[in-house]
Every structure is written in structure tokens, then in C-alpha cells.
């Protein structure tokens, strides 16, 4: 202090710095001055709330008068788009179920985890898969980030669909909110596609074939099918170009569209106010913006603290879901191989309904025309077609029935999209796949290594196997062999499991189905070999 005073004697007035905090220090002493400084900083950062005000908000104290909690809405950037108060009819779990908020949370989560993953990822078939291994074996929190990125993405799709259903059921898409709904429809489509293109990035068998199946619908586009197909895949088959395109769509193009669309969507939500539950306003009127003083729930403190609590709770849940080996883990299958199509491969689950429809017939009609030119556009423009003024459930029986039917239809079509519907495969291959599936580790790879004992075993004599693990495996095999036995084309079929010592810590397991052809009398055989290492340890999160 003394030095500063002395210094000022020698420095001409115009060069002396004027820092208010120094005046404070002089007048009030260091403790008071620092408190003042901290308060000042907090007020600037929160755009209007002092430390005491922030504490009051977090403690849920009643608002002082005049209310400083309105200032951040008026002056701050982030809160200017948040309303200062809500109608207390939309404050409960019903009618919003917080689904729009939840979708926004997941979007933010995807951005955070996505950026973390981008640091360790190069979109090239030469290294993409190796990057995945690196993320799992050499990046702290790598597995957590990858798993919760995948989990968050899938939950986001579910949330967005539920959000749309809720909006439909409560009739909230009706006048004046038609455009809000339309932007929401676009957000649904972009959510599906951003997830779809992200599917390809690990460059494993699962991603390559799921996306190959999806991209093959592009080929059915009328007139420009071939061009569309080339554009999406980046070549006759998905390779370096296709991967780069999927990456750019996943991390830049679609997210950018989503951010803009979301901005419009949320702006419209706030401009019109959250629609009240149907039945709380006269038919044809919209009273969401006319909130009487006694029905207001202020953003601060209640909604803010609650949303903060949601954020922490969701982060804790997502982290817990993937923290340990028993939790959710994003699959990672063997390296992508365009020459080997795994048995039972499907498109991602949220596009199974399209795959299901395509099994009904023409690829152009069911793969492109109906889903992309009828169903999705209909969703987007629905409020402009259905213009009945009443939002009451009782007045909307047809609309609600259509929604219920569509839901059931989507479920049925998704089932039809799975390999268990209308896919002809040979029962001998299915029997082997019951122990050695090609799209997941399956029972044999997950079985305890030490209990897979050397020898040749017959499936039908599973009871005589020397360990309970082997008995269980052979029993599964034998059950699937029932389908082979039931098939007239297979005479006297037998299932064998041959386990040999192959290398140190390595066993060779051959699953073999033999039969006599019912038509030709020729002997038939199908076998598959899997080598099992003592430490391969499938199912620890990959």
C-alpha cells in the first residue's frame, strides 16, 4: 500500500491507473473490498443477480421487492429466451412430461460427449476402427464418453418421438402452434438421420451393414436413384468417401440444421406460450399467454432450481448407466468387411419400420415413397390439414385413433423389419448361430473359458457333457436343432461340438451340423469354427 502511494507521487496523473478495487481497498479494507469485488463479478456474470440474490434463488426464498430475478431475463443473453414465468397449469408433470426439455438436454449431452470423441477420431476406413480401440483402451473416460454418447442418442430419439406423441395427444399442434409443430417434425427427421449417420463411424461390421441396408433404399428413389445412391455411399459401396460424408453429416451439417431449427422451434414455443391442458380454455381460444397474477410460476427460483436438479440427476443416471461392466455399453463388432454379410444383420432399430415395410413389396413404393414422401411429410404438415378447433380429447376421436393405430402399426412394422419375420434362412445355419451369432458375442463366446472342456460332444446328448456350462450350451444347440429335425429336407440331422486344444490359452471350437439330404440322398454338412482365447473376455463393454 505504502509503495503504491509513494509510486503515485512520481507518476504523472494521466498515467496513474484508476482501479476502483484499489479505492475500495483504501476505504474499506481488504475483506470488504474482496466481497464487493466478488459480488460485482457475480452480478455481471448472472446479468443482474448479486451473491445474496443467487443464494436466495437456490434456497427457494420468496422474491424480494423489487424483484431482481427478472433482470437476467431482460438483460442476459441466455435467459432472454426463457419466459420469466409459466402458467401453473403447465408447471406439473402433466401435460408436458418435460419431454421437450429432456430432448434438449440430450442434444447438449451429445454435443459435449461428441466433441470429446472427435478429438480421438479420424474419419478414414484405414484408422477409424483402430481409433475405436484406442478410445476404449487408451483414452481416460473414453468408454464412458462413447457409451453415453450412444445411449444419449438413442434416448434422444425415444424422447423426441414421445414428445411428438404428447403434443399430438393434447392437441397442442393446433392453431396458433402449427408452425411450432412443423419445425418439431423437421427436428424428428433430423434426429433420426443424425443418429443414422453416426452409426457408420465406428466402422465395424454392425455399422457398415446397418448403414448399407439403410442406404440401399436411396437407390430406389425414382429417376435419380443411382445418383442418390452414389451420393449417399460415395461410391458403388461404402468406403472412404462414404465414411467421410457420413462423418460430415453427423458432426456438422445435420447438427447445424438442428441448432437452427431448434432455435425457431423454441422461439415459437415461447412466443405462443406452453399450451394449457385441453379443457382449461374455451374451444378455439388460446389463453396460454394470458396468465393471471395468482397462477404464475416464476422461472426463478422454482423452475431454474428444478431444471438444475434434473441436469445433475440425468448426468448421474447416464454416468451410472455406463460406469461399470454391468451397465450399458455401445457394441463394437469386428472390423467392417464389405465381403462378409453377418447373418441377422438389420438397419438401426428406429428404421426397422422401413425395413419391415420393404418386405411387403416394391422397394420404391415401400422404401422411399411411403416413408419419405408420405409418412414423414404428412407428420410435418399435419396441423395445416387437420384444422378442427377443439383440443378436447372427446372431440378428437378420429385423430387419436389414427395416432394409436400408427403406433401399433409402427410396432408391427418394426417387428416385421427384424430377421425373425419373413427371412428365409437354413435351419442348419440358425442352429449354429444359436451359439455363435454373427451380430453379438452370444452364449459360446461369453461362456467361462475353463469350463469349455476338450472333446467331441453331441447336441442331443447334452446331459452327458462333463460341465454344466457345456450342458447349457449343448442344450441351447439341441433346442435349435429341433427346427432342423422338423424340416423334411434334413434326414437324420446331428449337431456336434468339437473342442480342441489349439495353442497356449487358445481353444478351437467347431460347431457342425450333418445330415442326409431328403431329396438327393447326398450327405450335407454345415460347420463354423470359433477360436476362443482365455483372456478374450467378451461382454466387458464393447
Amino acid at each position, binding site marked *: 500500500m505504502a509503495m503504491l502511494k509513494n509510486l503515485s507521487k512520481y507518476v504523472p496523473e494521466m498515467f496513474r491507473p484508476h482501479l476502483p478495487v484499489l479505492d475500495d481497498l483504501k476505504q474499506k479494507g481488504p475483506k470488504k473490498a474482496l466481497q464487493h469485488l466478488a459480488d460485482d463479478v457475480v452480478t455481471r456474470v448472472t446479468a443482474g443477480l448479486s451473491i445474496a440474490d443467487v443464494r436466495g434463488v437456490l434456497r427457494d426464498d420468496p422474491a424480494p421487492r423489487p424483484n431482481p430475478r427478472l433482470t437476467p431475463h431482460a438483460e442476459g443473453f441466455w435467459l432472454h429466451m426463457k419466459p420469466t414465468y409459466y402458467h401453473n397449469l403447465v408447471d406439473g408433470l402433466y401435460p408436458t412430461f418435460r419431454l421437450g426439455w429432456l430432448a434438449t438436454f440430450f442434444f447438449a449431452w451429445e454435443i459435449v460427449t461428441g466433441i470429446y470423441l472427435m478429438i480421438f477420431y479420424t474419419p478414414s476406413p484405414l484408422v477409424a476402427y483402430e481409433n475405436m480401440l484406442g478410445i*476404449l483402451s487408451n483414452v481416460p473416460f473414453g*468408454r464412458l464418453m462413447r457409451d453415453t454418447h450412444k445411449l444419449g442418442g438413442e434416448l434422444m430419439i425415444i424422447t423426441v418421438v414421445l414428445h411428438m406423441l404428447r403434443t399430438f395427444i393434447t392437441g397442442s399442434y393446433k392453431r396458433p402452434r402449427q408452425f411450432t409443430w412443423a419445425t418439431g417434425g423437421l427436428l424428428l427427421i433430423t434426429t433420426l438421420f443424425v443418429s443414422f449417420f453416426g452409426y457408420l463411424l465406428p466402422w465395424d461390421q454392425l455399422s457398415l451393414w446397418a448403414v448399407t441396408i439403410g442406404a440401399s433404399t436411396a437407390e430406389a428413389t425414382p429417376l435419380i436413384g443411382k445418383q442418390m445412391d452414389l451420393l449417399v455411399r460415395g461410391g458403388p459401396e461404402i468406403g472412404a468417401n462414404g465414411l467421410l460424408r457420413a462423418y460430415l453429416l453427423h458432426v456438422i451439417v445435420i447438427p447445424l440444421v438442428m441448432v437452427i431449427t431448434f432455435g425457431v422451434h423454441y422461439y415459437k414455443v415461447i412466443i405462443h406460450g406452453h399450451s394449457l391442458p385441453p379443457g382449461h380454455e374455451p374451444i378455439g381460444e388460446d389463453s396460454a399467454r394470458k396468465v393471471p397474477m395468482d397462477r404464475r410460476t416464476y422461472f426463478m427460483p422454482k423452475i431454474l432450481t428444478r431444471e438444475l*436438479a434434473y441436469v445433475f*440427476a440425468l448426468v448421474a443416471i447416464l*454416468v451410472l448407466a455406463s460406469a461399470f461392466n454391468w451397465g450399458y455399453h455401445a457394441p463394437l463388432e469386428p472390423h467392417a468387411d464389405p465381403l462378409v454379410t453377418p447373418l441377422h444383420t438389420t438397419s438401426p432399430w428406429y428404421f426397422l419400420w422401413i425395413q419391415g415395410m420393404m418386405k411387403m413389396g416394391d422397394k420404391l413404393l415401400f422404401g422411399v415413397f411411403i416413408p419419405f414422401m408420405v409418412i414423414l411429410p404428412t407428420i410435418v404438415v399435419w396441423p395445416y390439414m387437420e384444422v378442427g378447433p377443439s383440443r378436447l380429447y372427446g372431440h378428437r376421436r378420429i385423430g387419436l385413433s389414427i395416432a394409436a393405430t400408427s403406433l401399433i402399426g409402427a410396432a408391427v412394422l418394426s417387428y416385421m423389419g427384424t430377421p425373425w419375420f419373413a427371412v428365409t434362412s437354413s435351419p442348419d445355419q440358425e442352429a449354429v448361430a444359436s451359439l455363435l451369432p454373427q451380430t453379438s458375442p452370444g452364449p459360446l463366446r461369453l461362456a467361462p473359458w475353463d469350463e469349455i472342456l476338450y472333446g467331441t460332444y453331441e447336441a442331443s446328448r447334452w446331459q452327458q457333457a462333463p460341465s454344466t456350462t457345456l450342458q447349457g450350451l449343448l442344450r441351447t444347440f439341441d433346442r435349435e436343432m429341433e427346427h432342423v429335425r422338423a424340416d423334411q429336407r434334413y434326414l437324420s440331422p446331428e449337431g456336434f461340438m468339437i473342442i480342441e486344444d489349439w495353442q*497356449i490359452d487358445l481353444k*478351437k471350437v467347431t460347431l457342425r451340423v450333418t445330415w442326409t439330404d431328403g431329396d438327393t440322398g447326398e450327405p450335407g454338412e454345415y460347420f463354423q469354427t470359433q477360436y476362443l482365447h482365455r483372456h478374450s*473376455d467378451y461382454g*466387458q463393454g464393447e
Partner: protein
Amino acid sequence: MKWHILIGFLTAGAAVVLLGIIALNEPVRMESFSRSYHSRQIEEGARIFENNCRPCHGPQGEGSPLAPALNTSSLFNGERLTAVQFNGTLEDYVKGVVSSGRPVPSEGANYPQRMPTWSQEFGGPMRPDQIESVVAFVLNWEERALAAAEPTPVTGEPMMGTDIQIELPPGDAERGRALADGTLGCTVCHSLTPVGPAWAASGDQPGLTERAALRVEQADYAGEAGTPEQYLIESVADPNAYLVPGFTANVMPVNFADRITLQQMADLMAYMLSFR
């Protein structure tokens, strides 16, 4: 305090604790994943080896007349590296040879074919990760290869030679089978099914003895054998004397005449004649 404020604090604490637990566990988890991935490379390498390398190097890498042994101590104790004057690691050596093949054989070796290139980089069929899997599998032989004693039998017994009319001593089919499956590595090539050599009768093909008898009667037969036995000896000792249509010259090594003893030929003959 309102419930949501309580929950907010509790879950924030829980998230921090969980992240802490994960952070503490990360080194162990990453280590474990690396180990399990290496193990899966060995599994995948075994599959690739079975489909691509086995025809020449044998099912257990024991080598054959077509290609050297890999499951052998000389690969792992540095002898092979010294012999080819390779200064890098064994892993690099194996990876290099698998990737780019062998333009010339090692000195003193007389294999009928060169090691082909396997890496896509050099025009082969395999991706880099597949090459690494095969290398992981081959290197996994180390422990057993070093443990196995390698006696080199040196005998003064008479060698077979190329005279197909020579009289053979009495042979033993069991010893012949051991030779075919093991030391000589015949079944590395002479097998079409996962079990047993292709000499047995299958489908409309009769057994080897029958086949040999038919062969010497054939109009286009150009060899010198007069009996089925002589034909079989000729096929081993002078394989280019007559080529069965569909096969090319020199694929069957031509040096067996100098490599096997008369007694071994007799044992092999006894074994081959057992396929009727």
C-alpha cells in the same frame, strides 16, 4: 429445503463420486481392454491362418514340404532372424514377411513356391488389422515352440531315390500315417475335408489303391509304372513323371527322393495301400 434442491445436491455429489470411481478404475479397465483385444486378435488370426496359411505352413504351423515351420523354436530364439540378418523385432519380421511376401527363399531352402504378398498395401487381400491378427496368432506359438524339444534324427539308412522298381522292405501302416500327418506333412495338402486325407474313397472317387490301379491303365498315362505300387512310388519320388489333369508341375515337391529313406517309403506305401 425443497425436494428438488436436495435431489440436485445429492445427484451432483453422486455424479462426482461416480466419475471419481471411474477415474480411479480407468487404468485397470484400459489395461484389461487392451489384453482382451489382443486375445481377440489371436482368435481372429487363428481363423485367418486356418483359411489362408494352413495349406502350406500346416494346421499347427509345423511346416510342410511347401513352406517352413513357424511353430518352431528357431523362429523364436533368434536363429531365424540371425540367418536372414534382420535387425528389427520378431514381430516386425513376421509382419513384414506376411505383408509383402518373399521374393526369394531363404538360403538353402528349396520350396517350390514363394510366400505370396498378403497385405492390401502390396496387392494382397488382407487389411492391416487382419495382418496384425495373423502376426498375433503366429507369435502366440512362442511358449510351446520353445518348450518343445526338437530332435533331429540322423541315420545312415539308405535313401529312397528315383528308382520306382526298387523292392521295398516290409512297411508299417501306422508309422506311415505318422509320417504323412507329421514329419513329411503330406496331409497338409492332401486333404479336402476338415478330417482325414483325400486318399480315402469319397463320393464316386474310389480309394487310393483303386485309383492308382485305374491310373496305370489310362490311355494318356505317360509315366513308367506298371503296377499300382510303382505308380504310388513314382508319384512320391518323381512326381512330374505324370501329372493328373488339373494339377501343375512342381507343386508336389520334387525332392522327396532325396529326403525319405527306403523304410519310410515302405511305411508310407503300407499306409497308402490301406485306402481301398
